[in-house]
């Protein structure tokens, strides 16, 4: 199993550009998550999904959009990139039948995004 994979590993964007961060998992997990981690800080939840077609906002959803058309994929869309979105973005997944707080979350390697 590859686990959770993310592409790209690094990206530099100009202010106002858009991009999609890709995330895929091959563990047949129902739950998937997007977090951002600013330097020296903890993880902040952006969006999460409990299954294909179902998504919900986390702590910091503004400026981002998600979709979940399959169990495996959970892309994160940045519209009109701003310097405040410079961060490391982690995708994670979990099996979780009891809710996101009750099972192990498996993290992808991250995407380092810089907005200039």
């Amino acid at each position, binding site marked *: 199993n590859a686990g959770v994979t993310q592409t790209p590993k690094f990206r530099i964007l100009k202010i106002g550009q858009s991009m999609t961060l890709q995330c895929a998992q091959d563990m047949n997990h129902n739950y998937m998550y997007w*977090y951002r981690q600013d330097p*020296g*800080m*903890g*993880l*902040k*939840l952006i969006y*999460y999904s409990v299954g294909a077609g179902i998504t919900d906002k*986390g*702590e910091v959803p503004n400026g981002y959009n998600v979709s979940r058309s399959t169990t495996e994929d959970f892309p994160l869309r940045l519209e009109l990139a701003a310097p405040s979105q410079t961060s490391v973005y*982690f995708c994670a997944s979990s099996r979780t039948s*009891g*809710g*996101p*707080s*009750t*099972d*192990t*979350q*498996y*993290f*992808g*390697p*991250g995407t380092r995004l810089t907005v200039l």
Partner: protein
Amino acid sequence: QQPVQSPQAVILREGEDAVINCSSSKALYSVHWYRQKHGEAPVFLMILLKGGEQKGHEKISASFNEKKQQSSLYLTASQLSYSGTYFCGTGNQGGKLIFGQGTELSVKP
């Protein structure tokens, strides 16, 4: 509400012990502990569910006191490989996981 971790940073010599604390202002159903090495993804250590159960993982163990809304991570006889940032994540039943700001642990030879 983000849980509060203490201390923010700790430096140890190999073989020394450390305790990292995580406290919340809200009632908790679960506490997760993750370790993150510099430039890498967080890696799961353990999860504690409501019930006060203490768990162990090699020389790393944790306790969860739901009455005090606190969890502690115990690292005994620390090794160089224990260096990294430790995060607790707290959650309500069915709710999302909220992560603390992290505790940076450095183990020196």
